[in-house]
């Protein structure tokens, strides 16, 4: 991974009347890494992407994309950038090949170079066999793949993907996530927005969490989890004297908290692998039998909950 910044975001602000959509967002994305902006709908992710795509002018702040300022050199920015918009932005009455060919021309490709790139991209998105069908006849997942393919035509150094997996089937989603990793492996820098915690967790080298127009935290997955000190939660059900067992568990090494709610006992531990055997021992000692166990590792959902007091999908 190259540590020089592909994307430098410096105090971006954007308001629409009284709605302060983005309020001084700053972050860096290194070349060749995947940076995910995670946040609920309305957090300001798309507005941020729109400013970084030169579609919206920021009220304040600036950003440099591969050294090109979005304020002073928008054409330079656009030439190194591929954008996969949240909504499908394709001509449904044209075929996939015609779509790719047209968008390739808009990125300045011509002649044999254009033809070669169109064929290559059709291979990448797996639609070469159906390239001459009108996009309007494609399934949602296929359209998404063409939507991504358009952004790859000119081999951009940086690619923005704005919620590319919204509203598609699990198989197409899997394909898209795999293709994002492939792009990274080819050296592209990917700025990825999503409100799916699992996607950000799986894909990202770095994650920024946005809420109400602000970047409330950013770092690697582990850094974020550590930042809020989250522990693994073990949920158990018991057949026996729950009070005695719970009292014993509270004294067990590695356990920080034990609570009970309608028969379900939650135990917060530092390391579930080390602590779980001791929990079984204590239960056996009090002639109780553990009938179910569920382990929840610390995750971004919990981080978001900790930072905002709300669940990510609220």
């Amino acid at each position, binding site marked *: 991974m190259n540590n020089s910044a592909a994307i430098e975001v410096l105090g971006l602000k954007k308001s629409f009347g009284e709605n302060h959509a983005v309020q001084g967002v700053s972050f860096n994305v290194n070349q060749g890494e995947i940076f995910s902006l995670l946040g609920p709908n309305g957090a300001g992710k798309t507005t941020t992407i729109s400013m970084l795509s030169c579609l919206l002018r920021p009220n304040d702040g600036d950003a440099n994309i591969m050294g090109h300022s979005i304020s002073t050199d928008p054409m330079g920015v656009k030439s190194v950038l591929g954008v996969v918009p949240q909504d*499908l932005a394709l001509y449904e009455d044209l075929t996939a090949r015609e779509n790719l060919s*047209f968008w390739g021309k808009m990125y300045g490709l011509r002649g044999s170079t254009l033809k070669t790139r169109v064929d290559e991209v059709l291979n990448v998105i797996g639609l070469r066999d159906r390239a001459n069908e009108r996009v309007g006849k494609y399934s949602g997942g296929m359209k998404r793949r063409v939507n991504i393919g358009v952004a790859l035509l000119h081999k951009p150094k940086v690619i923005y993907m704005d919620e590319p997996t919204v509203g598609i089937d699990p198989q197409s989603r899997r394909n898209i996530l795999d293709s994002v990793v492939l792009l990274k492996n080819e050296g592209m820098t990917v700025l990825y927005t999503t409100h799916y915690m699992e996607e950000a967790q799986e894909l990202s080298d770095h994650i920024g969490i946005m809420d109400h127009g602000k970047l409330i935290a950013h770092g690697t997955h582990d850094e974020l989890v550590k930042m809020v000190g989250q522990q693994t939660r073990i949920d158990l059900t018991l057949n026996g004297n729950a009070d005695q067992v719970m009292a014993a568990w509270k004294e067990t090494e590695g356990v920080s908290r034990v609570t009970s709610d309608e028969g379900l006992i939650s135990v917060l531990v530092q390391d579930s692998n080390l602590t779980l055997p001791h929990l079984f021992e204590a239960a056996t000692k009090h002639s109780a039998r553990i009938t179910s166990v569920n382990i929840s590792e610390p995750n971004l959902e919990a981080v978001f909950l900790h930072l905002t007091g709300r669940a990510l999908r609220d």
Partner: protein
Amino acid sequence: MKAFDIALKDMTRSFRSTFAVIFMFGVPLLVTGMFYFMFGNITDEGGFTLPKTQVVIANLDEGGPKFQVNPKNIPGGKEADSMGDLIVSILQSEDMADLIEITLVPSAETARTAVDNQESQVAIIIPTDFSHQFADVDGKAVIEFYQDPTLTLGPAIMRSILNRFMDGMSGVKIAVNFFVDEAEPEQLFLTGQVVDQYLEVSLAENDDPEVELLDVRNPVDGQKNDAAENQNLLLSIIGPIMGGMMVFYAYYTGTSTAQSILKEEEERTLPRLFTTPTSQATILTGKFLSVFMTVSVQIIVLLIAAHLIFGIEWGGFASVALMAIGIIVSASSFGVFVNSFLKDTKQGGVLFGGILTVTGMMGMIKIFAMNSAIANKMGDTISLLVPQGWAIRGLMQAMGGESFNNVALTVLVSFLWSAAFFAIGVWRFNRRYT
């Protein structure tokens, strides 16, 4: 180059839409075709024939003071014993044979019944005292004209023939009365010659009454040249209608194609275009170019198709080319202008139903008022309040064989409209996307 790519892409999309193609080419040709068949039977020569008017005549005239009328002055050359006979002779003449078919009946009632039973379209009842009234200085000679109220053309032709005849006879009566008052008693035997001379001038001068009785006009205010005069009646009706349809639907296409800017905004392809290294000016130029090119294809195809299908002569090449450019520029800029005021395509329905229809009909009003001098003048004024009217004016001038300079002047006015529309439209779109 990118602008051209955008225009080509838009044209491809336009011509892949069955709905758009039908409206661009099918409807104008279809409407004109309907008029084509509505206005008459197509002959091998491309002309059309009027059906004969069935006329029943009850000549009850008992005659009166006689004056000799030279048979050569009566179409058909037959002698006439009364004014009623004279009318019948004229109407039965060979010259009228192509227009009317005469049946003589003995009574007024029989004549009216024939019309009531739709066996005839017109009944002419000449009263018993018709000749007497005519001969009487203070008399009033009246013919009863009884027609099927549901018909217009046949009865109108008959009324025109009779009016002309009665005007002539009134002239004779005035001439005779004047002669009797002024002549010496020994000169009264010359009364017959006075009548003959008058008839020579007023009745017999027209060798072909059909030509004179049917006032066949060229649509361009009587400014006919040789080429226009050679057009037959059907084409003189169909040509302007086709031209009007072409202008009406060219404006529809201009507006509809320009709406692709809003459509792309809604389809999110326009914002995506703005993320590519393509300037806003290039993108908008491409969109405007696509409107211009699409309307161009439509106009060229319609001009050629109408010529091949209906035989419409549009005029001299230079005038037609200039006029076509005028329509294309005008329709394109109007489309850009109107769409620049729309928030989204949903408003387009109101636009198409309202502005385009109203302005289109205003522009075409001259075409449908061309057979009435007063309505034609009024229609001319109204139509020039909208750009379509100027486009149609240029078209009619080219069709009427007017000079290139006249056509150029009209197209120049169209260009001025266009420049204003285009400037406003571009300014508004630029402001919208900046």
